[in-house]
């Protein structure tokens, strides 16, 4: 096939075409030159480049940022996990009114400190504002008025406060769940009796401490 590529021009066509065939070495060089120009050269398949040595530096590399770690926050337990762990269930031996009395004493101290000492001369408006943001875990509350007659008169220490209910423990060592809606509670501390309208109080204790209360007109139960 090399002979076909490089065939001399026949003698009788030389004069007609006025082309001279080159010598074999020149022809070879020109063929190579032609091929080189017409073929595409990829730097990747550059043989000479490939065969030369390249040095790879193993130390002094820039550390790669671990991007995944930045987005990973500490996720709390979801409700299912909490229920499985039964953190809201109180054991039988702990279901006693006496066990919660120290909590009540703690709450009394907390409230007295919060309101700056509940003296008879304290400003009622100030005390009221503090009560709105206060935590009621450990308070002794009484239901004084409710649309459901069976809740009326229930008294107990607040064991848990949820968004819509209070969980109390009564003197008979019974847990009572009282919904906040349509109930009026009364809290007594050092002679200060405050009535809480449960309908307005339907927020989690943590949210209540931070959120502002809207001023709404008093609603009948």
């Amino acid at each position, binding site marked *: 096939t090399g002979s076909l590529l490089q065939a001399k021009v026949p003698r009788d066509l030389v004069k007609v075409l006025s082309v001279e065939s080159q010598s074999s070495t020149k022809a070879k060089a020109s063929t190579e030159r032609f091929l080189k120009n017409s073929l595409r050269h990829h730097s990747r398949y550059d043989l000479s480049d490939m065969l030369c040595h390249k040095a790879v530096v193993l130390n002094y590399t820039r550390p790669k940022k671990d991007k995944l770690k930045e987005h990973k926050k500490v996720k709390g337990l979801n409700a299912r996990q909490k229920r499985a762990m039964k953190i809201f269930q109180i054991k039988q031996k702990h279901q006693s009114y006496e066990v919660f009395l120290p909590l009540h004493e703690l709450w009394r101290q907390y409230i007295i400190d919060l309101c700056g000492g509940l003296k008879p001369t304290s400003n009622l408006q100030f005390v009221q504002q503090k009560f709105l943001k206060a935590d009621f875990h450990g308070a002794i509350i009484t239901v*004084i*008025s*409710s*649309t459901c*007659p*069976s*809740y*009326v*008169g229930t008294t107990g220490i607040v064991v848990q406060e949820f968004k819509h209910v209070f969980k109390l423990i009564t003197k008979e060592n019974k847990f009572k769940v009282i919904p906040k809606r349509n109930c*009026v509670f009364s809290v007594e501390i050092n002679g200060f009796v405050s009535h809480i309208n449960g309908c307005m109080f339907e927020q989690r204790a943590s949210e209540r401490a931070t959120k502002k209360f809207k001023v709404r007109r008093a609603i*009948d*139960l």
Partner: protein
Amino acid sequence: MSVDVCEAPHCQLVCENSSFLDEENSLVSLVQQLHFNYKVSLLIPDCSSAPSHLDSVINSFSSFVLIKNMPVSEFIDKDFLETAVYPGSVCALSYRTRIGEDNCVALMPNGRLRLSLDRHSYHLLGIEGKVSKFRSKGRHIVSVDLTDSSMAPGGRGYDRLLSGLTCRLPLTSDFLLSHQQGVQSCLKSLLSRYDWSELRPEVSTKVLHQLTCPSDLGSCDAYSVMDWLGAVDAGISSSIGSSSSFLSTYTCPGPQRMATTALSISVSGFLLPHHVQILIMEVRQFLEQSSSPWASLTVHGFTDNVVSCCENEHGRLRGGVNFYTLLMSKGHDYKLLIVTGSHDSCSP
């Protein structure tokens, strides 16, 4: 104004013809069921003076007392329960309490205590009750059977009621109290603690002259008879009959006749069912002996009563009518007309 015109209160009139000799007549049960009676009015035509024994009968009615500012918790006091409620001899009604506005209380002889409370009081009391049939939003009826075993002193139900009436809702009211054996002798300890006054039924007698009255009550329409009786009781009977009168063209119903004299007696106070029965017996006896063709006896209940007949709820919108009329004729037949207001339940 326009609202009043559109919602005119309506009344029910139930008419029954029967005889005293009929053992199954409903008169006896009706009289027994209306525990609290305010007034009994009698109308006897062709009669000029009250029968003597009628006066003595009325004078023999036991007196009743009006106690001021008594708390309702006294009704569940142990002594009171044992001496008065359990034997079934006492009944009490709150006095001057308006059924639509205030809290009303009634204690019936069968030991049932009924409270009609407004919404706020009901929420405070904490005893299970029912919503009023007639005013669903504002009124609740609490009915307690004090003779029930759950309400025995020391029981849970009793303690709950006691704490409700003493601590949570200390209701006080003036009460009309009546005891079958005499209040003063049987309820001394109760009376000694409160301000009370003894009262007797008031009797007023009127003699009417030249009264146009129906000759046969049986043939007249019940409504027109009631209208006419009301007109006589109100004292406007003198203007009836003259159709040329400028003010009114109302005439006496049915075939008329002129009675020269007629007697109108009214006994008012805190009257019990057995008082009413005694009066009915007396009038019947009198009718047998006298020349009067008929006699009418109307028993009025209290307008602000908590209960109507058969311990049904009694309400008061603008009416509050709560009475029955007995038209007795010679012989043993009678016509019973029961009228109840729009907020009442009538016995069947």
